[in-house]
């Protein structure tokens, strides 16, 4: 399964979002009223989700802010790490 699709499914399942994967664009902001509307509690959960499912750990808050912008930015970070491995 493509990484972006898998991320969307994980977000919906883990965060109990009442939406379908098609409702989440690759570039849709995850946080704030212009996007999906996740909050800081969800952010913490996404961090745990990435660690649990991909072994991906955030090094600091700045990286977290950058990576957790959208499904696309998360996928980019995962792919970049995979390429570097």
């Amino acid at each position: 399964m493509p990484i972006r699709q898998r991320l969307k499914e994980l977000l919906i399942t883990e965060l109990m979002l009442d939406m379908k994967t098609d409702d989440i664009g690759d570039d849709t902001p995850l946080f704030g009223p212009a996007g999906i509307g996740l909050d800081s509690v969800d952010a913490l959960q996404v961090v745990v989700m990435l660690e649990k499912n991909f072994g991906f750990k955030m090094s600091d808050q700045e990286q977290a802010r950058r990576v957790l912008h959208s499904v696309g930015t998360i996928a980019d970070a995962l792919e970049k790490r995979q390429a570097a491995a």
Partner: protein
Amino acid sequence: MHRSILITGANGALGLAIAESFLAREADCHVFLGVRERRDRARELAARFPGRADMIFLEITSPESWKTAMGEIEGRDRPLGALINNAGFHEDALLANMAQDQWSRVLDANLNAVFHGCQAVLPGMMRQCQGRIVNIASLSAIWSPAGQTNYAAAKAGVIGLTQSLAKESARMGITVNAVCPGYIEGGLPADWTAERLKTLKMQLPMRRFAEPSEVAAAVFFLASAEASYITGSTLKIDGGML
């Protein structure tokens, strides 16, 4: 449910009763009895349940001690399913006469320790997407008797922490609740005279103090699978006193 339970202050009357409640009612759980220097009663309990209960050294006001204890617990074959923040003490004085360190010691042991404990167990519970935290507050948090500004403030803080953390962790399958016991048999200052205790009981609706097992039963329920939709709650267990 194969899980471990960590109970702080496990050498005291209530801590022992909570441990015994888990050991008697949940056949496949393993109980860690958090203790410091005083451990005679916890040792006796562990001996009565061989292979099911272990003492573990825990200095609740030290994050390093929590880290060491969690390393030991998580190194075993089952996850930590519940933390019972039970340890605490009071050191009463009127505020006008209260020394700074009397204030600080009580805040450290009753409120900061709960913060350290929750912070130590949360990463593991978040990874598992399940967990139970039960914080033992006190009726003093609501009643706020004279002479307990430090203790009442600390325990009221525990209730606030409980409610806020419950919101932060609810979606991760972790529940956080508090109980507020009133007077408990075996948990009162040793220097209180029989006459004082008798007078006190006469003022209570049930005219008796709680048995530790009566408080433990509520703690066990809040830490059970059946209490899955209860979080952020504060349950007072005072025989109708307030």
